[in-house]
Structure formats: structure tokens, C-alpha cells
């Protein structure tokens, strides 16, 4: 039942030829997106009538939140590919994705607290979204720690894959419980910025920054997957004494 698209990348050598070809182009695209995104976010976008300039932090905060959650879903998908279809590359790609997802979650947390400071006067606010992001960050740390906790790295990959599958099912429940806990303890917080009714002058920079984050995510994942393939090749070579 191997789906054609996954099967195409199944063979590490074929994957390396594919990634070697597209990495330079993807790198250039990422740099371009980041340059234009930052330019639009800092110079072009108007200040918000309420928050003034601090709204600009949203351009680095919100995309980090989106893609750190998407990366965790990808991690779970790779986990399923490894456990269900024994896809050889999924384990290595999962090792590549986890640190990037964790970094995105960290960026989201830090930028979130910088955003909260002028508005709420404190560095950290137990806001529902920030708290869920903090827990997602811990799930990432758990995944990374578990995948490296065994002498046999394949065992680590499979154990982390099981954790990712349970984690991705549990994540909405965690989010619900935190939102629910938040409404119990705090009146609805003022941060309502990500509603659809965002003014285009704010929406376009946000979308460009989101594209920049995505391009960087894909670039880093392909890059790190190549490294993991190399590492695994070194490991097996050492094991079989070649």
C-alpha cells in the first residue's frame, strides 16, 4: 500500500539526488522571502490603531506558531510512515524535523512574551495560546530526548514515532483543556488579532512572513535529513566494521 509519492523518496540515494538539486534554489527563495518579509513587516505595514508599533511582533510570532504546530503534525505523519509502512527515510526525516519544530516553538514563545510585555506589563502571561505552545515545546523536547536515548538509534526513532502519534492525538485535548482552564481563570484576553478581518496592509506582510518561515522549514528539513542520512551511513559502516 506504499503511496507512489512516498515511495519515490523511499530510497535515500534518490532522495539525496533530489534534495541536492533543489536545495540551492530553495535557499535563494528562502533568502528572498525573508528579505522582503522583514522589509514589509518593519517598514511597509502600518502601526495598529490600538497597539501602535508592537503589532509588528505578530509577523514573527504568528507564523512561528502556525509552522511549529504543522511541523508536529508532519512529525506524527512521519512516525506513522515509519511504523505502518516501515518507510526507511521517515525516521531520518523525523530526526531532522523535530529540532526545527522546537526552534519555531521557542521563537513563538519568546516573541509572544516580548509582545505581551508592552500590552500586559509582564514578561510571561499564562495566556491560553502561549501555554499550549509551551506544552508543544515540551512535547518536542520529549521527542528529541527519546529519539536519542537509546544506543540503537533505530530503536530511538521507532519509540519517538509512537510518542509523536500519541502526542498529535493528545495535542487538541491539551489545547482544549488549556483554553478551558484559561477561561476559568481570566476574562477573555484582548489579543484578538488573528481573526479573518485583518486589514490587507497587515495581512500581506503576515502571509509573506508565513511563506518565508515555511520555505526555511522545508530548507532546514531537507538539509538536516541529508545530514541524518550521512550520520546513519557512518553508524552502519562503524557497526559492520567496513
Amino acid at each position, binding site marked *: 500500500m506504499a503511496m507512489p509519492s512516498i515511495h519515490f523518496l523511499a530510497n535515500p*540515494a534518490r532522495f*539525496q539526488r533530489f534534495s541536492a538539486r533543489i536545495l540551492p534554489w530553495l535557499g535563494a527563495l528562502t533568502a528572498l522571502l525573508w528579505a522582503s518579509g*522583514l522589509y514589509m513587516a*518593519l*517598514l511597509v505595514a502600518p*502601526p495598529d490603531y490600538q497597539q*501602535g*508599533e*508592537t503589532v*509588528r*511582533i505578530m509577523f*514573527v*510570532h504568528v507564523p*512561528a506558531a502556525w509552522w511549529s504546530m504543522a511541523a508536529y503534525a508532519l512529525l506524527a505523519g512521519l512516525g506513522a510512515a515509519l511504523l505502518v509502512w516501515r518507510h526507511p527515510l521517515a525516521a531520518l526525516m523525523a530526526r531532522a524535523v523535530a*529540532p*526545527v519544530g522546537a*526552534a519555531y516553538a*521557542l*521563537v513563538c514563545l*519568546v*516573541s509572544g512574551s*516580548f*509582545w505581551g*510585555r*508592552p500590552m500586559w506589563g509582564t514578561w510571561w502571561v499564562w495566556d491560553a495560546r502561549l501555554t499550549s505552545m509551551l506544552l508543544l515545546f515540551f512535547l518536542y523536547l520529549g521527542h528529541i530526548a527519546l529519539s536519542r536515548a537509546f544506543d540503537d538509534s533505530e530503536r530511538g526513532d521507532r519509540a519517538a514515532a509512537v510518542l509523536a502519534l500519541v502526542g498529535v492525538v493528545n495535542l487538541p485535548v491539551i489545547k482544549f483543556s488549556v483554553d478551558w482552564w484559561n477561561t476559568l481563570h481570566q476574562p477573555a484576553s484582548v489579543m484578538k488579532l488573528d481573526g479573518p478581518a485583518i486589514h490587507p496592509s497587515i495581512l500581506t506582510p503576515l502571509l509573506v512572513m508565513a511563506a518565508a518561515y515555511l520555505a*526555511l522549514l522545508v*530548507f*532546514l528539513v531537507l*538539509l*538536516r535529513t*541529508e*545530514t541524518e542520512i*550521512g*550520520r546513519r*551511513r*557512518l553508524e552502519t*559502516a562503524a557497526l559492520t566494521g*567496513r
Partner: protein
Amino acid sequence: MGGFLSMGGHGAYIWPAYGIAVAALGGLLIWSLRARAKVQRELQDRGLDRRARERR
């Protein structure tokens, strides 16, 4: 230029937020590039890299 830097008085929050985001992601990028280079060097030393394997 002054207005741009002070960001309507909130510069002290906007610049660090951007700075940390770029530093963290940039750092991850550099670290990943260096890790790949190190692994490829080791592969070449052991004659395991792609060109050597295709020659065999």
C-alpha cells in the same frame, strides 16, 4: 531614522523580538550547514560518500 529606531517608543520590544527570532533561526541554519559539512567530510575520509560509492 530616529522614529524608525524608536518604533513609537516600543523599540525596546520589537527589535529584541525580531533579533531573537532571526538569531535563533539563523543559528539553527548555520549549525545545520556546519553539521552537514562535518558529516560529509567524515564520509569522504571513509570513502563512503556518493561519488566513491558510485565508482565502486
